[in-house]
């Protein structure tokens, strides 16, 4: 059997069983159970028995084999033990309360050299018969097989599942001979290439490989068809020599997944900006909605507050309250040490935020990345409900109130308000006012309370007074007299996301005005 010949040869030059299978182009989950795969392919591991000069039996398998010439011991039990040991005792890895992981392994370039030497040896020995040709990679890449062989073992050792949303474990693997062998390669680099290849190869200088070898440069140029095989063989052993030592784990770096914590906030304070307000390098106000939320949430995930990104479904001005069910927001938390947020912890966060007495947060929860579309898109279609406290120069008449009760709504055109014109471009935007409900203060008939439902993005203050005719029509125009705005509240942001969760499990929960109530308010 032809495969057996190749298998025996690879064993003879010092390949481990997994590497033998790689050069026999065995793929995928066949590596999960190597003994079974050997059986299925009808391969017999005769070589190692003969070498050891012993009879076939259970004892022979215990003899310590050489370090594999192809993977430098990467697939050996010995190395795997070293790796799992390094992972399980890693000082940072254990900080992550995360049950999924992704592996990124970086290998020494030496492995590419070894692959090339074996490639050349196989072409010499078997040539076309077994499909070993100079323009086709001879093996299944080590990285691919590593996923099948190493990842399950790491999974077992860490007690975590392999998953794309998990923590990232980056492992750098190196070998004692890396520097010396690459040095040898760099020396022959000048004389190794066939003349017709030197043109292609000249790209090298641009790639900045002067101080050594890079993987990219090696993979691009060091191909059996490009090099003078005789010169290569004079300088570098073909087949590769048996190494003295196995791979070493050089470094393990861990970074947590990015998680998203969503909720709704209410704002009760008229001197609180949405995000830090900094003017000419100085803070105008000490706090912001963003900071009050982040400072209570970030510590649990063991992430610096400055790394957390806050976004919300719109925003209100510094002097505007946000009542009702509040405004949806989301925190993007990178390199999180935890991926779950127990309700009791969420409750403590919410209670801690309550202590500020400036804002209040409810429905705090972890949400999947996919749900961010709710907050990031479709802003134009959302509606917002406001309550404006307005003042007239003269006491309101029934006629004025009737003119300002507009259940059917109307369209407006709004130029960028003067108050933001220093930082926003001058544009005229069409906006829809869905409805207006007007009432009067029983104690002072100059004071009106207007409940306004509008398309998101409408500037309410300007809708009231008109911004010197730059919002048209405005309430002043509709009633034919001056009207100004003294205070504004947001009553509802019509985004039903994230879902309701009652974190106030220890009974500190307060009733929040029901959304239906607000709807009634708007309709009546």
């Amino acid at each position: 059997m032809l495969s057996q010949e190749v298998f025996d040869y690879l064993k003879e030059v010092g390949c481990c069983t997994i590497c033998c299978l790689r050069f026999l182009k065995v793929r995928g989950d066949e590596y999960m159970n190597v003994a079974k795969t050997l059986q299925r392919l009808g391969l017999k591991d005769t070589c190692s028995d003969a070498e050891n000069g012993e009879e076939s039996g259970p004892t022979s398998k215990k003899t310590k084999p050489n370090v594999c010439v192809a993977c430098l011991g990467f697939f050996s039990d010995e190395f795997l033990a070293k790796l799992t040991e390094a992972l399980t005792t890693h000082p940072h890895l254990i900080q992550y309360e995360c049950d999924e992981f992704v592996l990124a392994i970086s290998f020494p370039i030496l492995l590419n050299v070894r692959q090339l030497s074996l490639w050349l040896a196989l072409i010499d020995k078997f040539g076309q018969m077994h499909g070993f040709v100079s323009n086709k990679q001879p093996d299944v890449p080590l990285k691919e097989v590593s996923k099948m062989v190493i990842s399950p073992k790491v999974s077992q050792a860490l007690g975590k599942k392999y998953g794309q949303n998990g923590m990232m474990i980056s492992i750098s693997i190196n070998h004692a001979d890396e520097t010396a062998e690459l040095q040898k390669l760099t020396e022959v680099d000048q004389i190794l290439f066939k003349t017709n290849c030197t043109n292609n190869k000249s790209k090298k200088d641009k790639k900045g490989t002067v101080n050594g070898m890079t993987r990219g440069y090696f993979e691009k140029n060091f191909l059996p068809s490009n090099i003078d095989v005789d010169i290569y063989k004079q300088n570098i052993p073909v087949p590769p020599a048996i190494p003295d030592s196995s791979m070493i784990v050089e470094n393990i770096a861990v970074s947590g997944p990015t998680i998203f914590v969503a909720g709704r906030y209410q704002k009760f304070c008229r001197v609180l900006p949405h995000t830090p307000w900094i003017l000419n390098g100085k803070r105008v106000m000490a706090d912001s909605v963003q900071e009050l939320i982040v400072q209570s949430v970030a510590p649990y995930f063991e992430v610096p507050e400055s790394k957390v990104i806050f976004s919300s479904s719109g925003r209100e001005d510094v002097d505007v309250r946000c009542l009702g069910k509040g405004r949806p927001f989301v925190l993007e938390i990178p390199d999180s040490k935890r991926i779950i947020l127990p309700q009791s912890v969420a409750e403590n966060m919410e209670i801690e935020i309550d202590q500020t007495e400036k804002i209040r947060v409810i429905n705090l929860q972890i949400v999947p990345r996919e749900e961010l579309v709710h907050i990031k898109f479709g802003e134009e279609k959302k509606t917002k409900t406001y309550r404006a406290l307005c003042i007239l120069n003269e006491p309101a008449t029934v006629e004025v109130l009737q003119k300002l009760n507009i259940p059917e709504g109307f369209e407006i055109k709004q130029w960028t308000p003067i108050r933001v014109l220093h930082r926003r471009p001058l544009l005229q935007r069409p906006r829809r006012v869905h409805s207006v409900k007007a009432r009067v203060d029983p104690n002072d008939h100059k004071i009106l309370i207007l409940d306004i439902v509008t398309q998101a993005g409408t500037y309410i203050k300007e809708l009231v007074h008109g911004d010197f005719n730059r919002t048209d029509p405005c309430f002043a125009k509709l009633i034919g007299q001056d009207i100004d705005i003294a205070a504004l509240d947001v009553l509802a942001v019509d985004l039903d996301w994230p879902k309701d969760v009652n974190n106030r499990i220890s009974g500190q929960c307060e009733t929040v005005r029901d959304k239906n109530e607000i709807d009634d308010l708007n309709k009546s």
Partner: protein
Amino acid sequence: MAALEDFYFCPEKDTAFGKSIPPITSEFPSTHRPLVDRFFTRYYLVRQKTSEEHYLVLFHSNRICMVGLSGAHPAFAKGIEQVTCPILKKTDKQSTGEDRKRSAILQKDTTIAVVKCCDGTTYNVPSCVKGKLVEINQNVLQNPSLLSKEGYGYIAILLPKIDECDDIKASLLSYEEYSGKYSK
């Protein structure tokens, strides 16, 4: 017939932190100042041409400047027939601020508009402020009677450079200086 009582506001009961949330009506400021007073500072430019011309600059706290005529401008006494804007033709753009990088930078004495009075006199309205031209008020071009209404009567909106604002303010008359010198 509806009565005013039908529109009486009754605040909902709402609580937070165990306390009731004050209704919006309880938040009414004891002194409510008009829009212009709340956000703008008035500056004046008086220049002597064939007669004494009075101009008003409303300087917003965000440094946006609205430039127009002061009530003491002689054009009002004569009656204003027409306002035209020669720089609009030059830039051939209705509003110049849409592409702020390309919008014109005006000097203090650049003419932004020509006011023509009923008796045939014309006044060249100066920019008063060195800065980028953001907007020309189309409303006053169509309806010159707006010119006398403070705020509404702005002719142009300009945006000066941050570090030139102090010099610009110093080059104009403050409200105190102006009223001390010119009040009747």
